[in-house]
């Protein structure tokens, strides 16, 4: 059976894809639906939702359109989440593969560096990094990746340690393949599935970290972020709770969508691997 159809058979995958699809659609159509600066003032301040159909979700303390902010915020969340996770996975799998495959001193040095990163709480690391370098989208991505690559690195290394003892690695050596080619062509692709299985958790965590950084005012100031919106709403939490609740719900649904999609992919690939 075709993997896509099997994937769509699992209910969690369908739910995840629907949520994630909605998020991606929001991110894509944001500039079409809400051209111009979402941070511009659009109406009276603190307009409650469902009162004015040109501003369906109302406005915030400065009179900015909450719906427009929500749509543009999806762009930031998605971009930062995916970019940070991709960077973390890439760094992690390369470091893990090199450490596991080379062994000896290389392994020792790389793993002690990994330890050093792991002993610092990843959020503090990101916080410190952004505070020093200054907030911008790239820096936020780097800061989040800096704190999350250690998990994939450890998993990749453990996988590689078992794979490098397999016959097909011995067989690749026996035909005279270069060690780097063995590491990245024979070993890494087979070590990836468990690492990729982590990716949904990493993306979800990256989105939350980004939101937390923005909440603390360390996000890119030129972009709307959900974390920033929640922080904005905090001051008027009693009088206008919707300002915090709306981006909060968006955040929960996004993380849920990412996580369910990941679960679905893991499920599908697990079945496929079990059958082969």
């Amino acid at each position: 059976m075709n993997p896509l159809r099997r994937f769509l058979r699992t209910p969690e995958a369908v739910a995840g894809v629907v949520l994630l699809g909605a998020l991606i659609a929001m991110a894509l159509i944001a500039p079409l639906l809400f051209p111009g600066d979402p941070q511009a003032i659009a109406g009276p301040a603190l307009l409650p939702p469902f009162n004015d159909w040109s501003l369906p979700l109302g406005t915030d303390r400065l009179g900015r359109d909450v719906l427009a902010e929500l749509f543009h915020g999806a762009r930031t969340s998605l971009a930062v989440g995916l970019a940070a996770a991709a960077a973390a996975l890439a760094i992690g799998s390369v470091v893990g593969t090199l450490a596991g495959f080379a062994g000896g001193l290389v392994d020792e040095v790389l793993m002690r560096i990994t330890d050093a990163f792991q002993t610092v709480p990843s959020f503090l690391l990101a916080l410190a990094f952004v505070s020093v370098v200054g907030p911008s989208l790239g820096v936020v991505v780097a800061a989040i990746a800096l704190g999350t690559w250690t998990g994939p690195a450890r998993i990749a290394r453990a996988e590689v340690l078992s794979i490098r003892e397999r016959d097909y690695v011995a067989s690749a050596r026996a035909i005279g393949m270069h060690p780097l080619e063995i590491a990245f062509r024979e070993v890494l692709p087979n070590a990836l599935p468990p690492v990729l299985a982590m990716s949904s958790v990493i993306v979800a965590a990256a989105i939350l970290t980004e939101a937390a950084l923005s909440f603390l005012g360390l996000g890119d100031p030129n972009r709307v972020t959900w974390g920033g919106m929640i922080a904005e709403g905090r001051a008027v939490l009693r009088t206008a709770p919707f300002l915090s609740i709306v981006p909060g719900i968006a955040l929960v649904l996004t993380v849920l969508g990412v996580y369910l999609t990941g679960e679905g992919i893991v499920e599908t690939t697990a079945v496929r691997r079990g059958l082969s």
Partner: protein
Amino acid sequence: MTVLASIRDLTVTYRRDGSEVAALKGISLDIMVGDCLAIIGESGSGKSTLALAIAGLLPASARIKGSVAWSWLSSGAEAPPSVLPDISPARGEIAPSSALSPITYIAEGEPSEKQPISPLAGEMSGRTEGGVTERQPFKSEPSKIPLGGRDIGFIFQDPSASLDPVMPIGKQIAEVARTHLGLSWPQAYAKAKTLLERVRLPDPDSALHAFPHQLSGGQKQRAVIAAAIAAGPKLLIADEATSALDTIVQAEIVALIRRLVTEDGMTLLFISHDIALAAELAERIAVFRHGQLVELGTTAQIVGAPTQAYTRALLDAHIGLDAEPLLNQAGLHA
């Protein structure tokens, strides 16, 4: 001669990638009490599926048609081994089905009970995983089905996979005795020690407390056999039990199985790909290919006068110590 189990029109299909693969196609076979029957075949012949089907260990994803009827449970479910008739060397014909005692157990359709084996593992023959004692038979009337571990002892190919790596050998064997014979722990341990002596493990006292990784492959398989016979099963199924072992250890394990089967009056089902090994142990041989029973007869008939071309081909493919060398010695200087 009494029929122990009567298999009729047994068809087992596995679902794989949406399509169905028949592992067994309409097999009818009688296993006699005290039988020493070898099932031989190459990969894909369905021989392991047959073993699992008889033991009721097929994964939930398998679809089963036909019946496996047991006779021993009709008259006193706990018949001690001593009442079994003597093993007579003169057997070999398939018994007429009229000799069958009242059918007490028929499996129809799919096993509906929760299986400890995941459906993912269904494609594997099953011999590489799971414990000897932990599998569940088909759902049926609980008192009338043969119970894995109590009525049927199962020896898998890979002893490391059959043993719990973090539990001492003695406890794993004692657990079987305790579960099925209702012994107390001290009694069960005493029983385990006796069993380890019976399977000739060197130093049974320390083996009781040893963990599987401390034993060699052959010793582990001896421990697995001890666990398999702990509850005094009437039927012992050995599924490629010696294939992972080297020749010398294999010969020892085969000798051990032969001795235990004779001493306890057990019925033996010996599954193997090796026709020579099967011929050394079994009184009857059933040759399987592509899920079908090709030929069934006494060992002498099968080995000496096979009627089927496939059986002959299997015999011809055996390279014994007396085989004509394939090597052309001429032209070599060595």
